[in-house]
């Protein structure tokens, strides 16, 4: 597994205000290439808001979100790109995208950021296989000659569709849903829907995979399966993962890097072990005002 240590996504001074409410305040962190970065924090800390900014669903009030493909040397071009007012710069060896300037579908289509949702958003009336084919829309659209060649029934599209089905079949096999490929996605059990949503995001061939509470509602067994799946995504597909999670076993077991948010402010950033022992983090999770009180409350609850 090659982890070169460079950043794939740089979040700089991200601020998001909704009227008078500051959901995210001057947040900066890096997502390392080929690593799993966890974004944690108490409820209402602004984690999903950060996700929505990264994936283009919200326009940040302030801040710069840069995603980089392939060539770490391109980071040097960042200031020029920011000055130029363009959305992205593409070279033969890689590309740089300013996500805050891009609409949501282009973040997924060009910058290749895929995401899942806290409340699962599958196409429940479509089959499992169809869900995975919709994820390959842009490639298939191109192969169908933007529908014109497809209507005429040219063989080039049929070949592209077969390739897409094979890709989908590979993922279904991986998540153990091959037997249910022709069932409507809405009839799958909850845990399977979570896995399918991850597979669907993976079918877009992302560079960065953003998972919003992938372990929510899973039992310990399913949680362990999810951990394995995420490690496969990181190690075999060399894809960087950014995840929001409340399940600390998932966070501590698989993440390489943890960022902690509280009331929209970053309170800790580092390796899982370091973050776990950080008094500020414990204070935030216990809901107390400062570090002095932590010892008192921790004593009361028996930590």
């Amino acid at each position: 597994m090659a982890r070169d240590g460079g950043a794939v996504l740089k979040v700089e001074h991200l601020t998001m205000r909704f009227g008078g409410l500051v959901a995210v305040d001057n947040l900066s962190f890096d997502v390392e290439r080929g690593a799993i970065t966890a974004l944690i924090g108490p409820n209402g800390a602004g984690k999903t808001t950060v996700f929505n900014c990264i994936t283009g669903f919200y326009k940040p009030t302030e801040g710069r979100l840069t995603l980089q493909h392939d060539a770490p040397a391109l980071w040097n071009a960042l200031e020029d790109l920011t000055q130029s007012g363009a959305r992205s710069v593409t070279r033969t060896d890689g590309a740089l995208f300013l996500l805050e300037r891009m609409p949501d579908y282009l973040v997924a289509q060009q910058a290749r950021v895929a995401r899942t949702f806290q409340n699962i958003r599958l196409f429940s009336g479509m089959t499992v296989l169809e869900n995975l084919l919709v994820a390959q829309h842009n490639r298939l659209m191109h192969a169908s000659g933007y529908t014109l060649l497809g209507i005429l029934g040219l063989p080039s599209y049929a070949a592209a569709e077969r390739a897409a089905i094979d890709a989908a079949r590979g993922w279904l096999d991986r998540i153990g849903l091959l037997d249910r490929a022709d069932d409507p996605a809405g009839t799958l059990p909850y845990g399977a829907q979570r896995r399918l949503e991850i597979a669907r995001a993976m079918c877009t061939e992302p560079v960065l995979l953003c998972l919003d509470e992938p372990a929510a509602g899973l039992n310990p067994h399913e949680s362990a399966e999810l951990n394995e799946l995420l490690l496969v995504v990181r190690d075999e597909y060399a894809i960087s993962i950014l995840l929001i999670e409340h399940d600390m076993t998932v966070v501590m077991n698989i993440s390489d890097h943890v960022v902690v948010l509280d009331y929209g402010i970053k309170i800790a950033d580092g390796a899982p072990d370091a973050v776990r022992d950080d008094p500020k983090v414990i204070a935030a999770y216990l809901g107390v005002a400062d570090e002095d009180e932590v010892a008192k409350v921790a004593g009361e609850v028996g930590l």
Partner: protein
Amino acid sequence: MAAGAQSGRVATTGAFRDAAFTGLLAFALFLPLIGFLTGVNGSNELILTTRWPLLFAFVAIAAIGRFIYVLALKPWLARRAQQPVRAEAPAWRAYVTDWIVPFAVALVIAYPLVIFFTLGSNGGQKWIDNFGIQILIYVMLGWGLNIVVGLAGLLDLGYVAFYAVGAYSYALLAKTFGLGFWVLLPLAGILSSFWGILLGFPVLRLRGDYLAIVTLAFGEIIRLVLINWVALTNGYAGIIGIPRPTFFGIPFSAADNGFAAVFGLQFSPLYRIIFLYYVILALALLTCFVSLRLRRLPIGRAWEALREDEIACRSLGINTTNTKLTAFAMGAMFAGFAGSFFAAREAFISPESFTFIESATILAIVVLGGMGSQIGVVIAAIVMIGGSELLRQLDFLKDIFGPGFDPTQYRMLLFGLAMVLIMVWRPRGLIATRTPSVFLKQRKRISADLVKEGHATRGRG
């Protein structure tokens, strides 16, 4: 047993009370509507007549209907609602639908010839024109609207606007520039889809009820422009003398160079009608073929995904703006084809033909048929359009109800009744299953209970 009898008695008493209340309500409602009739007598005075027997007949129908509903229908529906949602539709329906299509296509191709040879020139016209062509126009419109409403889930209440654009495009261009039917047919389609995109832009952000209102307004705007732009459209009077389609250059006239003379046949107006029948049949089959193809292409899957969840679509990199606009454009294009055919067939068009009731009829066909179902649209069109034509044929009812009785006046009443019954019996339309566009091992039909309608998710308690 005693407890059962007890509860049965309670149910009957409840049903009686309910029926009495309904009767009272019906009486209050129908008293001014049916109980009194205003008319003009011989000396041009306004007179008021009362119609007590008719009023009480209606009140009795309402009360008895309510009684039967509460006592029998409601428990049955409640039992049915408690059954778990089936993920798959029953298998026999799959066999029927697979087998019925080639049979139906053969039937509609043979239909005018069978009529022609059995009923001859005079009797056949009604059956080919009023039933055949009329139904096929609505089948085609239903299939076109199905792309917008059924697949993409965008509720369009102004679909007739595109039908009007197609009709006026053909009429004006044919009369002004003398272009032929086969040139103007694609042109009318392109112009209509252009208007579809034009409507699409402002409504991109709207969903559900808001979208429905804006499209409704758009339909009315087009109609009002047609009425008021007299210099171009001749207003209410409409456009007359629109050139009729020719048989690839040979006109259907009694002249020496007419169709009958060229082919050595005896002149009959029926030849043109049979020709028009095959033109609209070909157009309808084209619509069906294209929309079935589109469903299996990425764009069709994107439409359906858009209906299911727009946000998820955007997270997968689908440009929802373009996807919606193509749905509007495609739907409008087929309405444009149908419109130009309509203008060519009638040789006369006026804004009267493009009122809201047409939009409502087409939408009713799509909804009754089952959203997204091709066969459902055909059945609903046959029932709705064929049914209203059939009402014109029921002259024998005059012998029963007296010479003043006109069955066509009951058209809307019957439609309303049919709509209520369908919504009670099959709330998702006649064909309430969705066929997957692609499969790995087995094509399983999906029950419509799992499929979203796009504009609003139906709550299931």
